């Protein structure tokens, strides 16, 4: 694929509202290939909205602005096309799909992506091998993969399955929406190791979190602070530590 020079993800003057209420206001954000960018911010600052809008969730009104991924305007694409291009959202609340076996879904997702690139479907043994390998490192047992997608999974199982899908689909832009929520320390370690294993000069991460805790495991290159629907400060990893000590209050006031 031809890559355009410049940032992998570029968001310019993005204004988003839901039922007429503005959520993101004049938001600007740039993420470069190879970068791990953290977005931190208080509840209600619009972090999850940003994640959903990048992935293409239909509930939002995009008032103005643009989101470019490799130079292409994502806002004109269906969620499936964004995913096929290599954008991935690890959901904060993965959706339960009764009646669809996890394995069946994984195979459909992988093959949909391959078809979009003009590649043949994976053979069953090849698919099984990939899943087995990826699930071992994430400590996912095969029995879980036979169950309906996310149905009856614990919080930790759901998050590990999100990372498994990320590993299988090998996206170039990974958006992690509060992947640490609902995880105990052991699961946090497993999930973080999975993410770290995917760090690559051609891949970027946007790690959305409320707490510094996750960033002890996934070390960010850049930290952005979000408040009231926009990025109000950017800096190095030290910014996350400062937030942990002093809280978001100062930034929330600055954004007002």
């Amino acid at each position, binding site marked *: 694929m031809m890559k355009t020079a410049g940032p992998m993800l570029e968001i310019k003057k993005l204004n988003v509202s839901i039922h007429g209420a503005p959520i993101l206001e004049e938001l600007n954000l740039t993420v470069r290939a190879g970068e791990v960018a953290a977005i931190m911010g208080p509840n209600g600052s619009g972090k999850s909205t940003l994640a959903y809008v990048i*992935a293409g969730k*239909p509930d939002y009104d995009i008032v103005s602005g643009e989101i470019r991924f490799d130079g292409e305007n994502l*806002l004109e694409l*269906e969620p*499936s096309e964004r995913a096929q291009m290599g954008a991935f959202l690890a959901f904060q609340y993965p959706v339960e*799909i*009764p009646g669809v076996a996890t394995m069946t879904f994984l195979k*459909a*997702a992988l093959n949909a992506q391959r078809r979009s690139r003009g590649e043949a479907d994976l053979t069953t043994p090849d698919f099984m091998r990939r899943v087995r390998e990826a699930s071992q490192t994430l400590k996912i047992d095969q029995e879980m993969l036979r169950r309906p997608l996310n149905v009856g999974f614990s919080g930790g199982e759901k998050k590990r399955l999100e990372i498994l899908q990320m590993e299988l689909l090998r996206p170039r832009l990974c958006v992690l929406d509060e992947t640490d929520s609902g995880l105990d320390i052991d699961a946090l370690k497993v999930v973080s190791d999975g993410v770290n294993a995917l760090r690559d000069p051609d891949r970027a991460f946007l790690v959305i979190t409320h707490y510094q805790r996750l960033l002890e495991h996934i070390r960010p290159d850049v930290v952005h602070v979000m408040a009231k629907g926009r990025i109000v400060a950017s800096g190095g990893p030290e910014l996350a530590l400062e937030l942990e000590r002093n809280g978001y209050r100062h930034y929330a006031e600055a954004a007002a």
Partner: protein
Amino acid sequence: MTTHVIQRSTAETTLMRQFELGKLSSSPRRADAFGRFTQRGLPTRRVESWHYTDLRAAMRDAAPLAPAPNSGAIEGAHKILGDRKRIAAWRIVLVDGRLIAELCDQLPPGVSFSREEPTPVDVDDPMVALNEAMSVEAHVLTVADDARIEGPIEVTHIATAKDACSLYSRVAILLGVGASAAFIESYLGAGPDVQRNSSTILTLAEGARAKHVVLVEDDAELHVESQIGQLAAGAELNAFALVAGGALTRRQLFYKLIGREAKVILGGLTLLDGARRADTTLQVVHAAEAGTSREYYRAIVDDEAVGTFQGKVIVENTAQKTDGAMKAQAILLSPRAQMNVKPELEIFADDVVCGHGATVGSLDPEQLFYMMARSLERDEAESMLLEAFGEEAIGRIEDDVLAKALREPFRAWLARERATRVGKGEIVPRESAS
């Protein structure tokens, strides 16, 4: 009784002429049944159990009675059977309402098949009475006491007429004490000018166990099917129907649990598109103690199609310790699609556990978004969700062979449905959602 001039509809007048001109009217039993029909006439929406299917209005006329199949018709039936994957271990074939011996298999030991005069059933419904009067042949399939038949027995109802015609068939299935067997009744070959009225009478003696699956795969103008069942003590029946074709389909089920600890599980999956209509109306009467009933119906409704589910569970005062649960769920794929759901409980005993639930909605947008965010195209995501919805219903039959028989027409319908939705531009994979 008040007497007044009854305005007969065209269809009713034709039916009366057909009955009187035919040889059937010489049988007192049939004449009695026809009398019960004419007393009521074709049902209208004023009859509560027919409220959503006004048959009198829908039936402009009664199609001519189908003639006995000639060699060409039998050849046609042969071809229809040949084009279809064989499901059952044993097959009985009715062509245009008549048994065709040369197309039937030798039945296994413990199962017998005979032709008899229709016997009346304890159901007050004009279409059931009409079926009793008009069925040229009535057949009885008997499973002997304690016989355990492995592998399903299929009764295939084939329509071969090219022109408008009406078909009547009547099959009674009797399971002896402690017997067990599985049955498939499939309806094939009917074109858009065929009017069908079919009855199946299932009688389970003490401790008998049966599974019964109905496949409506053809495109009749009218498919009226009555299933009348009676379960003795400890008997257990699991019956399921897949409706994938037909302009107007009416399935009506009348079940009675007459012995203690009987159990009936009724399920169905109705697939509707275009301007088709399908109505499932059932009644389960608990007349003995400690019975169990489960009703589990699902429908997928697209375009301007209309689905109906009416379920009534009656617990008589003799039926303490009854355990009943009814559930109806539908997915509407178009803003013009409709589903009528009416569950009812009438409970005259005080120590029972009965409940019902119903949901009607579109595909879950959260699920669709999640699947699309993992690269699946919208139509593929929709198909997977619909397949999962139907599979959950099919799984209730708890039999691999029968589930497979149901799954094939279900998947074929889904594939056709997906193709037409893409064709109509309802799914445009390469455009953004606005």
